């Protein structure tokens, strides 16, 4: 966890990609879940943020 947070602070590719992946997965889950309509409503913006974030952070430097 500490390595992950340090990686985020130092703008490293690995942890940021992981975060973007989690946001995309959350967005897809929100899109398809059968529980609450508001989650479906905000699913697209969540997935979009995750995807754009993924494109940006994949240009960050690798972990040493």
């Amino acid at each position: 966890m500490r390595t992950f947070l340090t990686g985020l602070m130092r703008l490293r590719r690995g942890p940021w990609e992981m975060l973007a992946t989690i946001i995309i997965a959350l967005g897809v889950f929100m899109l398809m879940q059968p529980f609450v309509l508001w989650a479906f409503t905000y699913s697209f913006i969540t997935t979009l943020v995750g995807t754009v974030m993924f494109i940006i952070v994949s240009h960050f430097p690798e972990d040493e």
Partner: protein
Amino acid sequence: MTDTIANRAAKATPQKVARKIKGLSDRAIAWIFVAPTIFLLLAINIFPLIWTIQLSFTNYKANRLNREPEFIGLRNYERILTDSDIWLNMQATAHFLFWTIALQVLIGFTLAWLINKKFKGNDLWTTIIVLPMMLSPAVVGNFWKFLYQPQIGLFNYIVAFFTGKDPSSFEMLGSVQLAPWSIVIVDTWMWTPFVMLICLAGLRSIPDYIYEAAEVDRASKLRQFFTITIPMVLPFLMLAVLFRGIENFKMFDLVVQLTGGGPGSTTELTSINLKREAFEKWRTGYASAYAIILFVTVFGLASIYVKALNKVKER
């Protein structure tokens, strides 16, 4: 001068062509070769995408060409994302996705594990198992439609044989409860071999010396399975899950052939609903926004897929 490939290519170039390209830099020649591909890519992929994004902010209808499309901002997105019918379509897609992937991974991995054991007729069985994958989805949809026939269908007779029910007492494609499962069964039948092949590649990439070392340490077969086989096949399994997830999210042909989205809208997956909005109701602007939502979702999943693929490559 040495007889290199470049020299041979230069010698083989006709004089007329050589004279024309004389004086062009390597970079310019490279651009000449690449330009048709880039042009095609822009014309076929990028231009329609940008146009669809633009249309998604309008109330454009493709069947009313005389009417000027009006800019309506994010209203199409708002309508789609608050529509409970589309939410139900998404749930139907989720049901289809979850069960097809779960069954395909389970059966695919088991088959790969069995095929990986050395036995007589191994290659023949592999060929037989991968046959469904080679068929066209339209063909598969059509012949499963016959198999599901309540009066003459083989599927109903097999179920009747094991359960003692009357074969014509249930209808797989006509029942609200059974229709979602009927499409899951067909997709699993068709695409399990694909998952099996990926798992087989993963199993065959595990070096024998790891198992030999585990044998020396007296690790049981079960422990070897859970501490060597599963962790080493996991990236391959992830790859299969993502690939099937993306493909099934876009599933159209097989389901259209089998149920056409019915009964009611129980098997109306998002792609079928999108086609209805675009080409039956002719709500082009609305359908464009719908397509962009699906595109962003698939693009997001594809990003994860590429990341997983790179991880497998690193191994």
